């Protein structure tokens, strides 16, 4: 696993990042190395997001490349979580919320008529801010939840295999293999969050969205999750919302900076580019002010 991860990282670095602007990323020559594990590219075209009359996000066009970790940073209330939730059609669960613009998953419009949001969420998994294992289920059942929650008979042996593979994938197997039948809520916070990641990857999504996955965790648990992100991007497309700039710098390949001009105005995408460039030589003044800690 470690060896494979190292190789892929080298590959990723070898491909020049095409993410100067979303427009160039759409070109055919912008395709990165061969996508592994069915990771898919997400593209947003001029997306506006609303809560009733309030516009939370305006005019965001962005490409989230497969097999990379894309960090969404920005101050509180700038719409990055809202934007993330639009990517797997969770935004519309809020009463009155609506979406304008186009979001595609490998060129398929996820908001097209006739598209089943349930199907979209199967392909685009999500890990939430606070660890939220199902409190009535054991560790095993939590990981298998995606399989059994979706009906259909899954053989016990097959389930066992998926559970083990997912827990290993989330770096949790060794810690919980002897207490798979214990309640998932009995684990520590960091373990619970990794359990939630295992649960999300058990259904084999193609994209993994993470909404501040470490904000409720201590530094050691945070580091464990960040390592995991580095490995998961070999198989999945990853978008991660974070408040923590060090985390964006450590764990992501691409960083998108969101900002809002003033309270009450919608959040906008200010700049997106390779993480290193965003943190060392941003093109926009607002980005520089933010990453240098002048506000936010």
């Amino acid at each position, binding site marked *: 696993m470690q060896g494979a991860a190292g190789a892929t990282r080298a590959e990723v670095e070898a491909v020049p990042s095409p993410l100067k602007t979303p427009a160039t990323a759409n070109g055919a020559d912008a395709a990165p190395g061969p996508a592994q594990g069915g990771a898919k590219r997400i593209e947003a075209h001029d997306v506006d997001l609303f809560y009733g009359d309030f516009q939370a996000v305006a005019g965001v066009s962005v490409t989230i490349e497969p097999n990379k970790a894309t960090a969404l940073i920005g101050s509180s209330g700038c719409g990055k979580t809202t934007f993330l939730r639009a990517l797997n059609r969770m935004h519309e669960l809020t009463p009155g919320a609506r979406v304008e613009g186009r979001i595609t998953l490998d060129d398929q419009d996820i908001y097209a008529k006739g598209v089943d949001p349930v199907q979209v*969420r199967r392909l685009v998994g999500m890990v939430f801010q606070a660890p939220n294992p199902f409190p009535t289920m054991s560790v095993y059942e939590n990981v298998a*939840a*995606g399989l059994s*929650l*979706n009906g259909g008979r899954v053989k016990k042996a097959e389930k066992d295999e998926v559970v083990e593979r997912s827990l290993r994938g989330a770096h949790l197997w060794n810690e919980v293999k002897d207490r798979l039948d214990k309640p998932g*809520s009995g684990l520590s916070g960091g373990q619970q969050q990794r359990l939630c990641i295992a*649960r999300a990857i058990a259904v084999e999504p193609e994209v993994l969205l993470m909404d501040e996955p470490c904000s409720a965790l201590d530094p050691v648990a945070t580091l464990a999750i960040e390592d995991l992100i580095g490995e998961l991007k070999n198989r999945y497309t990853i978008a991660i919302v974070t408040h923590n700039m060090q985390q964006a710098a450590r764990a992501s390949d691409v960083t998108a900076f969101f900002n809002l001009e003033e309270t009450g105005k919608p959040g906008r995408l200010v700049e997106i580019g390779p993480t290193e460039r965003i943190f060392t030589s941003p093109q926009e003044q607002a980005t520089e002010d933010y990453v240098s800690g002048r506000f936010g």
Partner: protein
Amino acid sequence: MQAPPETNTLLATPLGGRLWRRKTVNWVMTGLIVAAFAIALIPLFSLLFEVAKRGIPGLSWEFFTSSPRGVIGGGGAAHAIVGTLVITAVTAAISVPIGIMAAIYLTEYGGKSRLRRVLTFFVDVMTGIPSIVAGLFAFALFAIFLGPGIRLGVMGSVALSVLMIPIVIRSSEEVLKIVPNHLREASYALGTPKWRTIVKVVLPTAFAGLVTGVMIAVARIVGETAPLLVTTGVVDSINSNPFEGRMQNLAVYAYSEYRTPGVMKQASYDRAWAAALTLIAIVMILNLAARFVYRHYRTEIR
């Protein structure tokens, strides 16, 4: 630029000057609250004590195992115990599915719709319906189909359901509301349809609370008298078929033993008190069962 005059409020009054006053107020208020609590408990204990004192002499093997024997009196309340259990079971079988499903509609599907607001309003109104009205409703309903004067166990169950459904809806709604939204979202994010999320995540998480709510609703209707008097009638023999003939129950039995005692009046009165005691015991057992279920199956919700 004048400096504010030095004021030290601590020293403005002698230290401790207010402390005495505050302690006194605290003492008085504590006393009042304890007194209010005691006053609330007095009737409860007095009632329990009285029912136990007068009910225990009437309790006997015969009381639990036999039905009344003719005009001479004697016999027991077996028919009424069976009737109470059957009527209550049928009531629960009608009310629990309807009540829980209605609560699921209100919390999971209703949103902010007009229908939801209208339903909530009428549920609130229904919780205040006088029980005799519920009895007359069932009486009139069955009279349409089966002719006037009909008396059936199931009529009593329908009448009690009118009383029980709103209680189940209210308690289930409250319990479903406290299932945190992030659990629903976690389930949706796995690509789980809404109905399956409700069945597999929301209901199991709320299970203990739902059971407790149902038990308390049962305890509330098990002692109803008036609606059963007009729907299930008074009868002296065991009838366990709710769809055939009259059916006795403990509350009506206590009432009729007192109202029309047999030849040996005191024995009838004893049986009435014993029936009341049995009823209280049933309610108490249900409440204890609810607590047990709650303790053992509740889900820690954060």
